[in-house]
């Protein structure tokens, strides 16, 4: 199980909790085409937003825009309190690709991520995070030798290694087996229980309790 007391202590130490995240009238264009327009939502601490919709509806685009990886053609994203750097620096973005270096071992990848993303905000040791996701046996294997589901779990381990209040997850359960999906659901529930936020784009059932945003219905 997750050592919740240690996590909340680390969170309290750095005060990294976003109380409210609100997006209003978001419009994103890619290649001259409007992917979505006038999209608004609000999330409170502990809230989650499940983004659903058909292929090409703009689910991934929304997540990338929230992560600051795509420019907004219109609208604003605001949050309270406005401290601790940009939203991108307070958010974990997990995209389609796993952002792991194939030639490095799982542990080396996560140690790098911890040092690169973590500005001293605390988080689990790499071994603990890998044990949480059932990857301890693969810690010293180069990532190229892992299966798709194991790679996905290694990518998700960064959520535990580096503490950030907002999780932007693009199809987090891709290639995961039933047991791992249940494990991820537990980890996400624990994150919400500690006052984190999750925005997840998915076709599968993630079991997130919060709001649902359906894209593509009006596009």
């Amino acid at each position, binding site marked *: 199980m997750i050592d919740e007391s240690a996590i909340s202590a680390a969170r309290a130490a750095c005060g990294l909790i976003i109380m409210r995240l609100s997006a209003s009238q978001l419009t994103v264009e890619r290649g001259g085409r409007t992917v979505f327009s006038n999209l608004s939502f609000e999330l409170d601490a502990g809230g989650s937003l499940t983004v659903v919709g058909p292929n090409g509806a703009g689910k991934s685009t929304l997540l990338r825009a929230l992560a600051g990886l795509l420019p907004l053609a219109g609208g604003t994203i605001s949050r309270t309190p406005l401290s601790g750097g940009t939203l991108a620096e307070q958010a974990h973005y997990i995209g389609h690709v796993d952002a792991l270096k194939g030639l490095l071992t799982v542990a080396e990848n996560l140690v790098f991520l911890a*040092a690169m993303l973590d*500005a001293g905000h605390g988080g689990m040791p790499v071994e603990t995070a890998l044990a949480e996701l059932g990857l301890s046996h693969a810690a010293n294997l180069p990532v190229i030798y892992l299966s798709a589901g194991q790679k996905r779990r290694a990518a998700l381990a960064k959520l535990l290694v580096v503490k950030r209040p907002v999780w932007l997850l693009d199809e987090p359960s891709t290639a995961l087996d039933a047991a791992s999906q249940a494990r991820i659901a537990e980890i996400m529930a624990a994150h919400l229980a500690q006052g984190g936020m999750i925005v997840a784009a998915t076709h599968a059932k993630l079991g997130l309790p919060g709001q649902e945003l359906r894209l593509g219905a009006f596009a």
Partner: protein
Amino acid sequence: MKNVEDAPESPALGSSLYALFVREMRTGRRIGGGTSLGVVFFLILVTLSAFAVGPDLALLGKIAPAILWISGLLATLLGLDRLFQADHEDGSLDLLLTSGTPLELIVLVKCLAHWILTGLPLAAAAPFFGLMLDLPTNQIWSVTLSLVAGTPALTLIGAIGAALTVSLRRGGLLFAVLILPLCVPVLIFGVAAAGAGADSMVPFATPFLILCALTLIAIAGAPFAAAFALRQTST
């Protein structure tokens, strides 16, 4: 641990850049021989030039600095187009962009690792390949020194091209077309410094100091240009 958390941003910045450097060195070394492959490519270019010029030792010795520099230039740029592309493809560029570490410093650290794995071994191999080309002995050190001073500039200028072509699958040729013309000043003063010996008109210091200045300008300017290009092309 407590001290690290209490301290301002700088120690965390240092540790994240160090972690990036370690990662770059590890991945660079684990890709198919890494360092040795660049040197072997350098050797092949030098050997091909020697075959093309023919058995005229006097001529070969005279043009040896130019051969070594052109070969060094091509060997440095080999694989440089992948500097950011690999990160772009596996998604870790998104991660670097959202890390909070200044992108300019990330570019600089990646260039440093690339230079240590590519430019430095080339400079170290140059004296031996110079002997193959009958390079006058008094020029061996000037060739080596000019490569040590000049190859960082090549890596940094190449980083701008690598950033511009980051999202192109087959960007290698475009990369070379963009970057090779920009390398002309470095090549001119590099060869001039390398060829400066007892019988040349200019002393070694004159072109060498200009070469050092070019490298310093590249260190100061190229990370900003590359980071700007990365922000534009990756979004």
